């Protein structure tokens, strides 16, 4: 299936889940990659699309799109915003598909194509490793801290029947035995590559669709960028990422802080990025993430369960839209065997490109607030 087909399947399911018809959708926020709002609208029969926009920040785009959708429905520009995301990442990496796509152009920015790739820095783990290494220089780091993230995601995936890694449990010993890809990342520090899609519908709180399920409110959302966003090397503080700027804005908007979260879904392209975002989102101070993730604290039953669906590392790579969907399931109380008890607030982050960030604060009626 193409990206578009995958996204259409997910879109129809999300629209039905909201108790709506496709023609009730009047705005589309498209993620990056190959698909346009116009193609989606043409397939969905949207004869009057009032607004469309593409968020071009990689895996940070779905959560950043929640901010755009919130702005659209609260200003009255749109009533029901569709946010689909997904890609056939596994199929497109097969040799036959690669040759067919050779002329399709690269999604990478000129900074990367002209100054990283020629040197051999061609892939995200090589770019992000520069931050991981620097963080380790400043604060020390153990392999087990990275491993604790990978092990927690895999443990959660055992409770998710949609997770690719269900039935394939992994121990810390398994993690430490996996081969190094580019230091400090091992194979099991890297997210999956899958064919998958998801979709979210956002309406105003007084929209009839908002009564279809227990309400889940978007209390706050924000986007942020490191400076310069297109070059990871030349940053005054190389550990400051988009989320560093975004998180305080989202918390101020929501009137809810990281200390209020009952769970978090953290964009987990690689394990270090989870540690870094735990710090930059304010769940602990910079340099403290290693202690934060030890002893099962980020596993179900721990102080702050993270990626209860298994994440990109062990469920599937759905560009972060599955992190939003899982947060909604948790806040509706429909997460089944992996349900966090008594939840009122969940925090979701997105990470894209060279450290662009996004964050959303979600709550249900158990927690009062905006």
């Amino acid at each position, binding site marked *: 299936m193409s990206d578009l087909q995958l996204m259409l399947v997910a879109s129809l399911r999300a629209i039905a889940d909201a108790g709506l018809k496709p023609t009730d959708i009047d705005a589309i926020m498209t993620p990056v990659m190959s698909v346009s709002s116009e193609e989606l609208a043409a397939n969905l029969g949207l004869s009057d699309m009032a607004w469309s926009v593409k968020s071009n920040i990689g895996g940070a785009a779905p959560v950043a799109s929640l901010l755009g959708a919130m702005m659209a429905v609260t200003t009255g520009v749109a009533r029901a915003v569709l946010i689909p995301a997904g890609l056939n990442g596994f199929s497109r990496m097969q040799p036959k598909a690669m040759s067919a796509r050779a002329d399709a152009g690269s999604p990478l920015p*000129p900074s990367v194509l002209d100054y990283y790739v020629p*040197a*051999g820095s061609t892939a995200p783990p090589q770019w992000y490793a520069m*931050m991981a290494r620097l963080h380790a220089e400043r604060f020390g780091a153990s392999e087990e801290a990275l491993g604790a993230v990978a092990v927690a995601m895999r443990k959660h995936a055992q409770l998710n029947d949609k997770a690719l890694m269900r039935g394939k449990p992994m121990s810390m010993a398994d993690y430490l035995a996996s081969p190094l*890809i*580019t*230091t400090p990342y091992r194979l099991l520090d890297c997210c999956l590559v899958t064919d998958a899609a998801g979709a979210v519908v956002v309406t105003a709180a007084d929209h009839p669709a908002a009564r279809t399920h227990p309400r889940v409110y978007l209390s706050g959302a924000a986007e942020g960028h490191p400076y310069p966003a297109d070059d990871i090397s030349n940053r005054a503080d190389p550990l400051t990422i988009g989320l560093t700027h975004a998180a305080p804005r989202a918390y101020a908007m929501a009137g809810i802080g990281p200390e209020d979260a009952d769970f978090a879904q953290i964009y987990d392209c690689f394990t270090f990025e989870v540690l870094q975002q735990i710090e930059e989102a304010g769940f602990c101070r910079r340099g403290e993430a290693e202690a934060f993730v030890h002893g099962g604290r980020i596993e179900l039953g721990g102080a702050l369960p993270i990626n209860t669906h298994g994440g990109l590392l062990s469920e599937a790579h759905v560009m972060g839209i599955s992190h939003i969907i899982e947060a909604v399931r948790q806040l509706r109380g429909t997460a089944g065997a992996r349900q966090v008890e008594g939840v009122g607030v969940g925090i979701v982050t997105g990470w894209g490109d060279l450290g662009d960030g996004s964050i959303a604060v979600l709550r249900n009626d158990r927690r009062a607030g905006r």
Partner: protein
Amino acid sequence: MSAAPPLPVMTDLTAEFYGHLAGGTLHLQQCTACGTFRHLPRYLCPSCHGDGWAWQACSGRGEVLSWTTTMRPLHPAFTDLPMTLVTVTMAEGPRVLGRLVDVAPEELRAGMPVVIAPKTVAEGLAIPEFRVAPA
């Protein structure tokens, strides 16, 4: 046998940067208004927004800020592994990314002095590559 290396698109400022490097010396943009060096190449000075620049010949010396050693192939053109990539803070201030050759991974450390040694990858085209600076 590795695939042909991916090359920069030689237009505008990118062509200017690599054009100077092909001569054997790293040149970085320096703002003619406030004197600030910058990299990657930009049309405006991010410090004073001046739109004039000169390509200044640089010392080629710098220190390793961070690194990764790639052990498994991630691109068909880069199969001579392990390969160490470094972010280098040049003496003039800006940071330049490149491969560090002739170093054992266990010898890598932050602050390691290195010197640029442009590597010719195509006719008339050289990219930044680094060597450990002689003591």
